[in-house]
């Protein structure tokens, strides 16, 4: 299918380097992007430390904040709210401005939202490490931090939604649907879950249902929609072929929106059967919209990217799609009741979750970074690191998935003891520890590259680059 005229015009503008970036929006978008990358490093470091604890539980035993039970939720929250949310929000708002051919609304307020968000995640992460854990997965940050996160999410979402409301291009692209959906629902989800769970308005196993609803809604309506929004922008743009099917994208959007909140309960949960049955069914039906999205976007990748950064974006995007469909296929086997009863609390679950969150959402963000950051900084560069990213993805998620299968088989064996479970998992945990080390290396590379480019731009802007080179020349002469 040929590219639409507006996409062709956008592409031509991008390639010719005449893209008129909104200078006022650079600061908040760069703030969110750079801090997002910094949280990527922090979360990878915490993940690596917690993985190390599996091999050396005595490591740092004298320091309570280094226990696995504190490191793991701190790492997860830093990854979800520090890296994915922040980087995804920056990318999403940038895409909204681009597709709407408008400027980012209220850049100063967006910057304030970014500062508030970062401060909250910092306090929340340290809070978990210090022992102020709420005990609710994905909502572990202390209640005060959750409240601030809710406020920050409103600030950021309002800026994004006002941006698209002020658009000059009346057509809403599929990328914009997904990002609007993400920005609209984030405060709803954070607010409702915090009020219900932290406000203790429900009790007993209903908490499990609400927590499952929150995690699944966040996974799809926030992280998933941000990832899809990025891919629906990046792929048609960089491949120069346009979107394969708008109607298929529309169907996938609404199907995912309808199903998103229903699938968060495992087969063995202490809840009424009807909730479990609905949840299992929805998780199986999820394969349909995901397959449609992947088919639609994959058929849009046929063109040729024209620059190195676009080629890299497209490659990241293709791998993101591969991770998405892999997740969908694995989760079908995971959510069949007979399998789910044995696999639900094994390493299989974090394995496929990581494949989705890093392999799909994370790769989509890195694909977007390769387009957004050069545009914001006005320089031509690419982040690189695709090989390291792939190694990190495979070495973290695959061993966890295989380890989960092993764990389930030992668990079902009557002759085995809990010591056998641990012994059986050691090789898989060893592999995933190396995976988290690779993730740490990747995150550091990404951050260093961004900081280096940022530094160059700042030096150029203040005229210090000339001074710096003059200074070094004079030193050499001396």
């Amino acid at each position, binding site marked *: 299918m040929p590219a639409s005229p507006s996409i062709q015009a956008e592409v031509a503008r991008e390639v010719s380097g005449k893209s008129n970036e909104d200078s006022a929006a650079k600061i908040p978008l760069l703030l969110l992007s750079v801090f997002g990358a910094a949280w990527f490093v922090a979360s990878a470091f915490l993940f690596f430390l917690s993985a190390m604890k599996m091999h050396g539980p005595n490591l740092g*035993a004298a320091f309570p904040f280094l226990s696995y039970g504190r490191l793991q*939720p701190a790492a997860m929250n830093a990854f979800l709210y520090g890296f994915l949310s922040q980087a995804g929000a920056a990318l999403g708002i940038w895409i909204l401005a681009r597709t709407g051919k408008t400027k980012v609304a209220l850049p100063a307020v967006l910057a304030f939202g970014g500062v508030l968000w970062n401060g909250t995640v910092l306090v929340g992460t340290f809070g978990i490490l210090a*022992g102020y854990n*709420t005990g609710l997965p994905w909502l572990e940050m202390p209640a005060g931090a959750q409240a601030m996160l809710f406020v920050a999410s409103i600030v950021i979402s309002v800026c994004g939604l006002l941006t698209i409301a002020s658009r000059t291009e009346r057509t809403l692209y599929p990328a914009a649907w997904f990002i609007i959906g993400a920005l609209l629902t984030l405060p709803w989800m954070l607010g409702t879950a915090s009020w219900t769970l932290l406000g203790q308005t429900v009790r007993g196993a209903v908490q499990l249902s609400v927590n499952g609803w929150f995690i699944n809604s966040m996974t799809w309506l926030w992280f998933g929609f941000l990832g899809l929004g990025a891919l629906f922008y990046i792929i048609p743009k960089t491949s120069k072929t346009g979107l394969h099917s708008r109607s298929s994208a529309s169907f996938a959007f609404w199907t995912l929106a309808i199903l998103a909140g229903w699938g968060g309960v495992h087969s063995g949960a202490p809840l009424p059967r009807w909730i479990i049955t609905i949840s299992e069914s929805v998780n199986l039906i999820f394969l349909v919209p995901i397959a449609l999205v992947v088919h639609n976007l994959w058929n849009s990748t046929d063109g040729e990217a024209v620059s190195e950064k676009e080629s890299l974006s497209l490659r990241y995007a293709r791998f993101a799609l591969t991770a998405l469909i892999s997740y969908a296929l694995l989760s079908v086997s995971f959510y069949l009741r007979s399998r789910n*009863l044995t696999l639900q609390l094994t390493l299989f679950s974090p394995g496929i979750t990581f494949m989705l969150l890093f392999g799909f959402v994370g790769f989509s963000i890195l694909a977007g970074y390769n387009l957004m950051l050069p545009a914001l900084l006005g320089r031509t560069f690419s982040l690189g690191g695709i090989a390291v990213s792939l190694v990190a993805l495979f070495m973290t998620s695959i061993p966890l998935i295989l380890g989960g299968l092993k764990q389930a088989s030992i668990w079902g064996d009557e002759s085995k003891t809990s010591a056998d479970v*641990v012994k059986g998992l050691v090789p898989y945990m060893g592999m995933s520890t190396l995976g988290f080390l690779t993730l740490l290396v990747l995150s550091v590379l990404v951050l260093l590259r961004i900081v280096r480019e940022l530094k160059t731009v700042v030096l150029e802007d203040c005229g210090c680059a000339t001074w710096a080179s003059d200074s070094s020349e004079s030193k050499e002469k001396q």
Partner: protein
Amino acid sequence: MNHGTLIFLGLLLTFLGSWSGMVLAPQVQIGRQQPDVQLQPLNRPPAEGDVGEIYPQARAGLAAQGREIYQREGCYYCHSQQISPHPADARWTQLNRFSVHRDYLFDQPAMFGVQRLGPDLSNIGLRQPDENWHLVHLFAPNAFMDGKAGNKSTMPPYPHLFDYRKIMPQGGSTSALKLPESVILPKQYQDGYEVVPTSEARALVAYLKSLHQDVNLFEAPMYAPKAKTNVVSQTATNGAAK
């Protein structure tokens, strides 16, 4: 689909739909359940005049404090507290019934668990009622593992829940840990020192000992338990750790 209002209304409806199904409906159906009365724990034969007990009961005293330590240390990341209907769960937990909503009425938040890197603890109060065992296990998780067979616990030790104290001339503390020989103390504490649990360690153990789901509930069919014969029943409150 070029109208933001349409997307807003559509998303609001889908959001309300899932919220109604996964939050409101369970709350309406089971959210107001009350404790059951006159229930007989299956592992304890009824005595004459025994009217059973109320189940569940809110934890009080040390056990309630211990719950906060459990939450603070993130124990739920490795230990679950939910027994699924799968037969293997009954074997591992030594309790032949699955968990239901009523088991968690007074747990706020209820920590169902994220993974099972360690054993499920729904029934640990019955499976292991020995307080010293729990304390030693928290101090040195490998103390009871057969190291020769290559067995090693991945559980971290919690030394900050214990104090080293010099043994007084008149004798050691009665609350000091009875450590097995396999536990080797740091060099500086090997002579004349004992390990004494802090109040936090005792509270955590009181909480662990309060965990049991050994009551026959209407909604959770239960069959004859395979629990050990020396298992001692604990009441749900079980605040006082001795």
